[in-house]
């Protein structure tokens, strides 16, 4: 990072006119959307922009603070979404109490027992591995433990799952959640993601950076596969809809006399009010996270992190436990992504595992961080808003462009239809182009690290 001369001298506080101007410009994009399209659209994009900014903050912690290359953001986001279901969906007592042929326990309890058995198997295998002296005996013992444990797990788990999934599969067919307020799911999402991050970090962090990338890429795919196939957990591809909201419903507002009396157009007013309430909630969380991140960044802990990032060898010579610090920041960053995932599922009021695409939920977040400025919390936030706005708006812009290009062509011509139909894919191209341009000409991003 030697090209400091190209950028203006950073202000001590980090809040300089250039940064304020950048934020104002991005704000203008949203205001412009409000005027040109509609305020409803602008707020929809803005709310997802807030969530994207939080995801970008999480990735920035891992990449910007510690140089960890995590390409499994999608998995952590999806775990957050799962938390929203597990915490806030209503429990399904019929599924919990379903009977199994020849079984004594209710199905729900047996599912949990099966999961416990699975965890115990892995624990036993690890214990066997660490306690026995190395040699053929140990290898055999570990294999035997794993095979026996797996067989037991399947014997207990499979019939229970079958029983649970058989309970009214069209509307439930899963164990349901705890029925608690959905706000509680947000920290839970962080905790779930942190747990997953701990497991990955323990195995892959000591190794080379590329291995962490592949490991996270893999775990993300596996998490999505689990969400899609384990119907007893969150209904799989049948989706969980109607997750309770932390804010009032539009219909309730529209039937509220005082509310209707206040506005000329109560329908539009109610949708905008709901979105504004969400925005307020999200802004509080984002502000808290930025404040915490900035505090951490400027603390001795933050300096230590950067020291480790910039030179691992000398940092460990100074007595810093590099692996433990990496694990710590990896868990923290993933937890933030999980939190954002839970918020997103709350905003959508549904968990749709099929919508989790790595390009959208992993690599787009990376574009946000790189474009905004890796190693700068404000940069990540700015990148989150800007790139999300572009991601949404490039599609109509691409369509507009295609309509302009194809205006001269004959109506119903094959090429014209194809070009118009493919306009949606312009956004991938644009994102790649933006990423490459920023990486080439302004590698430190819009708001560089101080």
């Amino acid at each position: 990072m030697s090209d400091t001369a190209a950028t203006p001298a950073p202000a001590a506080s980090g809040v300089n006119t250039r940064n304020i101007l950048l934020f104002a410009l991005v704000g203008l994009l949203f205001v412009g959307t409000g005027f040109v399209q509609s305020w409803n659209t602008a707020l929809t994009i803005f709310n997802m922009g807030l969530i994207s900014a939080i995801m970008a903050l999480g990735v920035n912690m891992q990449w910007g603070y510690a140089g960890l290359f995590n390409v499994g953001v999608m998995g952590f986001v999806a775990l957050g979404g799962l938390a929203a279901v597990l915490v806030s969906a209503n429990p399904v007592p019929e599924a919990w109490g379903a009977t199994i042929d020849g079984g004594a326990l209710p199905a729900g309890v047996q599912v949990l027992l099966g999961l416990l058995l699975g965890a115990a198997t892995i624990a036993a295998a690890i214990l066997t591995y660490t306690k026995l002296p190395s040699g053929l005996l140990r290898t055999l013992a570990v294999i035997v433990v794993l095979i026996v444990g797996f067989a037991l797990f399947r014997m207990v788990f499979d019939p229970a799952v079958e029983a649970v999934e058989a309970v009214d599969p069209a509307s439930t067919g899963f164990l349901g959640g705890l029925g608690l307020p959905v706000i509680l799911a947000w920290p839970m999402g962080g905790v779930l993601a942190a747990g997953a991050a701990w497991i990955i970090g323990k195995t892959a962090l000591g190794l080379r950076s590329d291995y962490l990338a592949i490991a996270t890429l893999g775990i993300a795919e596996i998490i999505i596969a689990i969400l899609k196939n384990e119907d007893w957990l969150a209904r799989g591809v049948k989706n969980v809809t109607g997750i309770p909201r932390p804010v009032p419903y539009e219909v309730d507002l529209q039937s509220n006399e005082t509310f209707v009396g206040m506005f000329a157009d109560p329908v539009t007013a109610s949708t905008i009010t709901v979105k504004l309430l969400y925005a307020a909630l999200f802004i509080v969380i984002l502000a808290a996270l930025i404040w915490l991140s900035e505090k951490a960044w400027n603390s001795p802990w933050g300096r230590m992190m950067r020291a480790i990032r910039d030179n691992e060898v000398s940092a460990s010579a100074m007595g810093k436990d590099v692996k433990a610090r990496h694990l710590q920041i990896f868990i923290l960053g993933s937890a933030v992504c999980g939190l954002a995932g839970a918020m997103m599922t709350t905003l959508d009021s549904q968990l749709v595992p099929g919508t989790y695409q790595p390009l959208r939920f992993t690599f787009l977040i990376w574009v946000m961080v790189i474009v905004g400025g890796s190693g700068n919390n404000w940069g990540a936030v700015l990148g989150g808003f800007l790139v999300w706005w572009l991601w949404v708006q490039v599609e109509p812009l691409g369509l507009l462009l295609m309509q302009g290009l194809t205006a001269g062509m004959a109506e119903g011509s094959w090429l014209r239809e194809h070009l118009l139909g493919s306009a949606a894919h312009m956004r991938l191209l644009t994102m790649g182009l933006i990423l490459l341009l920023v990486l080439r000409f302004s590698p430190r991003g819009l708001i560089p690290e101080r």
Partner: protein
Amino acid sequence: MDFLNAFVTLANFVIIPATAYGAQLALGALGVTLIYGILRFSNFAHGDTMAFGTMVTIFGTWGLQAAGITFGPLPTALIALPAGIAVTALLMIGTDRVVYRFYRENKAKPVIFVIASLGVMFIMNGIVRFFIGVDDQRFADGERFIISARTFRDLTGLDEGLAFRTTQGITIVVALICVIALFWFLNRTRTGKSMRAFSDNEDLALLSGINPDRVVLVTWIIVAALATTAGVLYGLDKSFKPFTYFQLLLPIFASAIVGGLGNPLGAILGGFLIAFSEVGVTYAFRKVVGYLGPADWQPDGLLQLLSTDYKFAVSFGILLIVLLFKPTGIMKGKSV
């Protein structure tokens, strides 16, 4: 006890499909491992390179079919393959000029190359979806089977059939030719030797007068050929869908890492290891075990370790085990 039928069932559902899949993975992993060994970064755009090459080949196939040219019993795509390789090679060289060369000259850190490859991945993904769309495309034509299940049953009189599809046969033959050609090139030709020297020790290679630009150029051409071939073979065997190719990145990387990144022989070994485990773990062994047991007996369960939806978990699990116990891979790879 009926060993013959058990073996035929196993061959039909596990050994043949896994061999074909393994050959496809091996070709993909060879490309990844070559880029890693010579250009020294993990290329995340590799799956999309495969998709791009396949797309060009499909367009070529359609063109040939429209002109009435076919390859007799073999798929027409094989005639279009060289054109696909050529276009992909041009794209690779162009990408290197525009994107990667700058970072190479500036001696950027490997992870910067990886991030640049993410950008390339986005763009190529966009290009492929723009031209051919996101849908499934089947482009295999010609004879469907070398031996169909029915012919096999008639020939041998066994209860079980053994189907050997043309695409599987072609995959194995073409992959074999590719691998032999590649190893001949790397071990016997001057350029190949200079590539290996460059991979082993860049500074020493430069000192002994090896032209780095030429090495990089040849590497990209070989990678384009391997990726396109792997993609076309996979598409012929299954079907072409851009998103599937993107997802292939995981088993391909797993193969390359398991074999030892930067080690071509390891990549081939890793490809087959991953393919056989993926197919083996997700196959229901009920019938096979039934034949091995007493007559007129079938086990109750499906005897399937994992449902096929978790095939990614298999490559991942193997990857994890190898990383934990042998971090440089089965055959010694290199580390940046």
